């Protein structure tokens, strides 16, 4: 392992993380819910009366974030290297996997680990391990 010191951005990572944590905190303290994005989105697939508007509002907030940012400053670099077919396959896997696993990086990774939920810690270790393994295979076994 070698650390890419030129790519390492500790300050913005910590500050950005704290902002994400603040959003999850706000949502817990005001709405009494877990800020789990796969679950919030997935709940819209089977809409229940009275359970729709807050979900749409949260999703709209996320989509509005880059637009709001753009009003004030230029967005930082956003680069998608994967091909369109790979993105389509990856999207399907993420969409189905997060629903079976009952959460993603936000619900399990941020909120669940913050609450020391054993279930979320197991989920987080599982998706991190699979992510590390996938990039290893794609970049160093197939890609080399």
């Amino acid at each position, binding site marked *: *392992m070698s650390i890419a010191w030129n790519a*390492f*951005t500790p300050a*913005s*990572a910590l500050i*950005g*993380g*704290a*902002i*994400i*944590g603040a*959003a*999850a*905190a*706000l949502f*817990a*303290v*005001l*709405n*009494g819910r877990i800020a789990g994005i796969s679950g919030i*989105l997935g709940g819209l697939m089977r809409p229940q009366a009275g359970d729709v508007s*807050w*979900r749409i*509002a*949260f*999703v709209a*907030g*996320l989509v*509005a*974030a*880059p*637009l*709001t940012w753009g009003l004030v400053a230029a*967005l*930082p670099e956003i*680069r*998608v*290297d*994967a091909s369109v077919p790979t*993105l*389509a*396959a*990856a999207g*399907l*896997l*993420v*969409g*189905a996997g997060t629903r079976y*696993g009952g959460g993603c990086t936000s619900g399990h990774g941020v*909120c669940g*680990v913050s*609450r020391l939920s054993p*279930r979320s810690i197991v989920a*987080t270790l*599982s*998706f991190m*391990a*699979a992510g*590390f393994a996938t*990039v290893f295979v794609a970049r160093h076994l197939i890609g080399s």
Partner: protein
Amino acid sequence: MYTAASFTAGLVFGLGLIVAGMANPAKVLGFLDLAGAWDPSLALVMVGAIAVGAGAFALMKERTRTLLGAPVLLRSARRIDRRLVLGSLVFGLGWGLSGICPGPALVLAGTGSGKGLVFLVAMLAGNGIFEFLESRREPAQSATT
């Protein structure tokens, strides 16, 4: 008020993702590439998020109503089973192929990125596949019990 708070939480969450670099799939893949030139930044994103989030969850643990008077719905499943692990592994596979997870997928769509939209549509299709399989599973399950 409840809906406005939800929008605000989503907006702040999305801004945090952009500041952190999580909305940039290339940076996420740099974190997942342990064997290459490893960018440890995203570990610090988790540290920052958990440090701030943990206090709020601890505060809400004993409460039954939120500051807006809404019910606290923070109790969640505790089961650790094959679905949890296999689902999370499948998610990690997709995450590793793309560098995109659900929150950043929505932020990317908001930037108007065509590739981001492809991912988002496929992700929603994946949600749909899950719902379809679940709806077939439920009658079969109730028939056996």
